[in-house]
């Protein structure tokens, strides 16, 4: 049987890379200050740089192909999803017979078959399933995701590696670069996140518009649109009829039930427009994907990765938006960092004795000239060390007050601690949440090595 996969032989190796090698082996006027053109640069970056692609969907397929064709040889891809028949129109690495298989695994295999010399390691799991250490091996993390939550997670992991020196300057070896792509119908963005230098995802998360949510009483009493009927079935009717049974949007039977209930309700109120695919769209918040938008955004992202790693041209500063809806429009905005961002900011440096207790530490915060924080509650990597209120939590954490901080942060030489309290801000006391870099005097790096081993 003749398969559509059969293609003419791939170009021979040097031929394939001719244009890229020209770009990487010749000097120019618009290059990065550290650009070091040489005929071997492509090989060097290919073998030294490890790049992680997060997501193997619409953007991920494009990204893997683009990165592989840009000279990157060590790629990893992570995606928890399996291939659905509705993906095939744009996720071009997948075929009908792949339906049900892991996106990451199939995408990795297909690109490796087509671009020789490229190694792609697939990870068929959730991003949260990986140890944090997993992410430390990559020089660049490229994001092809579709949710704020997943972006925020990867952003906090990547920024978590960032360390600052005593002058609050980022230490270059600890910087994990991120290139974030995103598309929604005809619109898309590509942005470069250099933790400590350009704004991180959390610095301007407020840019995202809120999701449209209908009032429950409108759904229950006065539905006016097909979407109202669908959300009624989804949010109200489901629990009424199936108490205790969680709704699963990926279960076709569940979706079918929602559809038929929504249809009944639409008939009752004389509303038209409820279809099965619209039901899926409303419940799963699906926005129709446009293959070309993915291609445009992915190309921009892959280019940024290439420029970042090689220095062959200046990188974008720092947020590119693409809009193909009314004509075509591309804009680049230079967003600013939030100085005391909880995720990427340096935090206030505080030196403590190993014997300083938590209550002494809270005292220190009151007098610290940069903080002047009273009534501080303290949290460290998810452990609530002390809570001023409510009473129930104060009681549960009170016993920590006499314990040395060094012990509470489990004997590490340096710890990131977050504190909440009333702090001075432009001469006024206001409730504040601050990040602190706590360093313990006299604790050697060596002791931390012992600790980790």
């Amino acid at each position, binding site marked *: 049987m003749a398969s559509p996969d059969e293609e003419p032989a791939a170009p021979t190796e040097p031929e394939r890379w001719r244009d890229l090698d020209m770009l990487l082996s010749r000097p120019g006027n618009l290059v990065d200050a550290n650009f070091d053109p040489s005929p071997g640069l492509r090989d060097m970056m290919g073998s030294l740089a490890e790049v992680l692609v997060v997501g193997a969907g619409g953007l991920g397929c494009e990204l893997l192909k683009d990165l592989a064709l840009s000279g990157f040889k060590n790629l990893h891809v992570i995606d928890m999803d399996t291939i659905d028949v509705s993906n095939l129109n744009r996720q071009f690495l997948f075929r009908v017979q792949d339906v049900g298989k892991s996106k990451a695994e199939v995408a990795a295999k297909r690109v490796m078959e087509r671009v020789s010399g490229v190694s792609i390691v697939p990870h068929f799991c959730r991003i949260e399933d990986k140890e944090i250490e997993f992410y430390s091996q990559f020089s660049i993390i490229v994001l092809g995701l579709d949710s704020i*939550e997943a972006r925020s997670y990867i952003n906090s992991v990547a920024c978590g590696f960032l360390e600052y020196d005593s002058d609050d300057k980022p230490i270059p070896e600890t910087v994990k670069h991120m290139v974030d792509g995103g598309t929604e119908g005809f619109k898309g963005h590509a942005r470069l996140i250099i933790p400590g230098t350009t704004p991180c995802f959390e610095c301007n998360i407020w840019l995202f518009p809120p999701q449209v949510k209908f009032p429950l009483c409108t759904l229950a009493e006065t539905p006016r649109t097909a979407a109202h009927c669908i959300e009624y079935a989804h949010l109200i009717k489901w629990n009424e009829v199936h108490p205790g049974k969680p709704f699963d949007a990926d279960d076709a039977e569940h979706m079918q039930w929602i559809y038929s209930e929504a249809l009944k309700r639409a008939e009752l109120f004389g509303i038209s427009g409820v279809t099965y695919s619209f039901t899926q769209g409303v419940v799963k918040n699906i926005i129709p994907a446009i293959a070309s938008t993915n291609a445009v955004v992915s190309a921009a992202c892959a280019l940024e990765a290439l420029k970042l790693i090689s220095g062959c041209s200046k990188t974008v500063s720092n947020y590119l938006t693409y809009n193909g809806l009314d004509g075509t429009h591309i804009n680049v905005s230079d967003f600013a960092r939030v100085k005391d961002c909880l995720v990427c900011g340096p935090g206030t440096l505080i030196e403590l004795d190993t014997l300083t207790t938590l209550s002494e530490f809270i005292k220190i915060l009151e007098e610290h000239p940069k903080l002047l924080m009273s009534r501080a509650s303290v949290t460290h990597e998810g452990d609530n060390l002390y809570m001023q209120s409510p009473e129930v939590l104060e009681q549960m954490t009170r016993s920590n007050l006499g314990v040395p901080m060094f012990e509470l942060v489990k004997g590490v030489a340096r710890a990131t601690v977050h504190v*909440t309290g009333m702090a001075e801000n432009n001469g006024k006391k206001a409730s504040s949440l601050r990040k602190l870099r706590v360093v313990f005097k006299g604790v050697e790096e060596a002791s931390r090595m012992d600790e980790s081993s």
Partner: protein
Amino acid sequence: MLNLFKIKGQKKEETANTNGRPPKKQSPGELRLHKDIAELNLPKKTRVTFPNGKDNLMNIEVSLRPDEGYYVGGIFVFTFEVPHAYPHEPPKVKCKTKVYHPNIDLEGNVCLNILREDWKPVLNINTIIYGLNLLFMQPNDEDPLNHDAAVVLRDDPQKFQRNVQTAMSGGYVDKVYFPRCK
């Protein structure tokens, strides 16, 4: 340009990385929630508990005891499920106590604007608790989730008062049984 040789050197050092384990993640949402909780300024007689212990504040139980209005004397328990995307996304709030109320249905869904369409990241857990408290002080018949209760409240407030009392003491209203919640 990333210094590729540095990257190479870094790899070798990786095992000997003196900085030990990278920090465990604490999401920005958790941090913001920590602030919200530390600053809670609850209405009188309102209690909060944390079913998953002091280090997991993402699940909260709030019990309200209205001190005026139709619902005086009742205890109403709400569960707050705070999403990771908080405060970009609002907490999911349900009423665990079965209540005869125009704006709360029998499955515990609550019609309060700031929980859905009017949620903004500047709002917080405290605002929601005050909003819920207000629902018990001033139930309204304009945003009904329990249609029958809303109609009674609008047309016959005295009957509504009696129904609320019956439900809170444990009894049937319109063939629906309400367990005692006083």
